[in-house]
């Protein structure tokens, strides 16, 4: 399988990365090189094989559903580029 220019733009949009028209051909070439490389997986017989979900046999640990942390609003917003009264600021979403 290989991707065309329209697919490259669609993937970029899904990944939320702005891509200029000038960048598309180059990206298309790179993505197709990777897809050509992984193509060899199609020759493996995976009939009846379970997809891996955990590399070590382990049961997911569970903990009590209680508050273990908190009251650190200043810490949470400390590295934010724009804040006001411990809120993150974003461009207007609802008119």
């Amino acid at each position, binding site marked *: 399988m290989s991707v065309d220019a329209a697919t490259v733009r669609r993937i970029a949009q899904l990944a939320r990365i702005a891509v200029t028209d000038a960048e598309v051909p180059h990206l298309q070439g790179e*993505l197709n090189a990777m897809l050509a490389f992984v193509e060899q997986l199609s020759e493996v017989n995976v009939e009846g094989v*379970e997809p*891996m979900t955990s*590399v070590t046999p382990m049961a997911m640990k569970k903990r009590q559903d209680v508050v273990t942390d908190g009251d650190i609003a200043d*810490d949470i917003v400390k*590295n*934010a*580029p724009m804040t006001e009264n411990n809120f993150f600021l974003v461009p207007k*979403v609802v008119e």
Partner: protein
Amino acid sequence: MTDLTSMTLAEARKGLADKTFTSLELTDAHLKAMEEARALNAFVMETPDQARAMAREADAKIGKGEGGPLAGIPLGIKDLFATKDVRTTACSKILGNFVPTYESTVTSQLWRDGAVMLGKLNNDEFAMGSSNETSCFGPVGNPWRREGSNTTLVPGGSSGGSASAVAALLCMGATATDTGGSIRQPAAFTATVGIKPTYGRCSRWGIVAFASSLDQAGPIARSTRDAAILLRSMAGHDPKDTTSVDIPVPDYEAAIGKSVKGMKIGIPKEYRLDGMPAEIEKLWGQGAEWLKAAGAELVEVSLPHTKYALPAYYIVAPAEASSNLARYDGVRYGLRVPGKSIGELYENTRAEGFGAEVRRRVMIGTYVLSAGYYDAYYIRAQKVRTLIKKDFEDCFAQGVNAILTPATPSAAFGIGEKGGADPVEMYLNDIFTVTVNMAGLPGIAVPAGKDAQGLPLGLQLIGRPFDEETLFSLGEVIEQAAGRFTPVRWW
């Protein structure tokens, strides 16, 4: 004072305990070496004031007989580990001037045991790379050069800064992380020892995530013994990482010097690649002879799905990366590039903040997870991963204690030499290491010799789950036979 930087960690530990020198003296000697080696670009952030404060504290504790296992030992920290109040960037523009308000579990355990932080080490952006060339801080120089050449070579990656700094004697050991070979390949390129422990052995909490089912932390060190000492402090159960395993951490150092007599060492025939350099083939045979001379038994084994590990990795790892890196949105931390709408803000920030390799992997990951392609790519790759793991299980079920392979398909190469036209050329560096991450196993790279141009080459030993001790015992046999390798200073 310069000879204070040429000891192993184990030797320095003894010198500190015997009061031959203080941690402050040891730390100052390394700070000086670090300052003089800026041409290597191994450190992206130097923290001399913090280092001296930590050294004084260690000296006071040693004086009272309360020093921990790493008391007063100066270390470098890969910039992927969150360090409280010290800038942490994963060497990406998108994290900008991120200053964590918390400490990663692994580094907090090193400080608990008395270690001293010299600074933060360069790496490939988000640990995506095999040459340290994708870092937003620029490439790292390998302390090793080809004989008679002035060409600067890469130290490998992604833990290139860690490997370069340890090899150049700028720090006594370093933290590193390994998702597809990022500890073992740079260790092999710089004649240092690097171990990727079993998945779950070290907590991932506070380490910038790349591919969560593959990422593991481990040390890069000057000797096998040093690596064992460091891993003991780094490893252990952490309730904050649900995949960290709650089993006791052994005294890895006790495995150093232990007899390997009667151990069965697998030599996988699938690792004998067409066009493999004769020097690597010879080194591999030499390593096998050393282990045999120490009483181990060599057996040929088969890992039939080996060739599919790298392509499966280049589906699984980018898929997880595309999910993990979704958090960089220009809102909560790091870089923000304005846009008219929130969508534009995201797109502009991520276009500006991610480098070419990261963008490529996020995009391929997004594609293989997208509707219509998920089964064909992602699910198929996860099935192949099951088969790769089964290959190893079958091999260990035959009584094999560990598997010996080359660590890399070549020695270090020049900056800008690989991957320019086709990204896959660079990916092939990890051909011998990536299987280990896919199967969640421990793997160690130890220096074993040099090529005709005088560049170091390493061997890899792959172990059973949570049997790092056997790897340390076997690694020590190779180290004793091969000796230690130190680069000639040019920086």
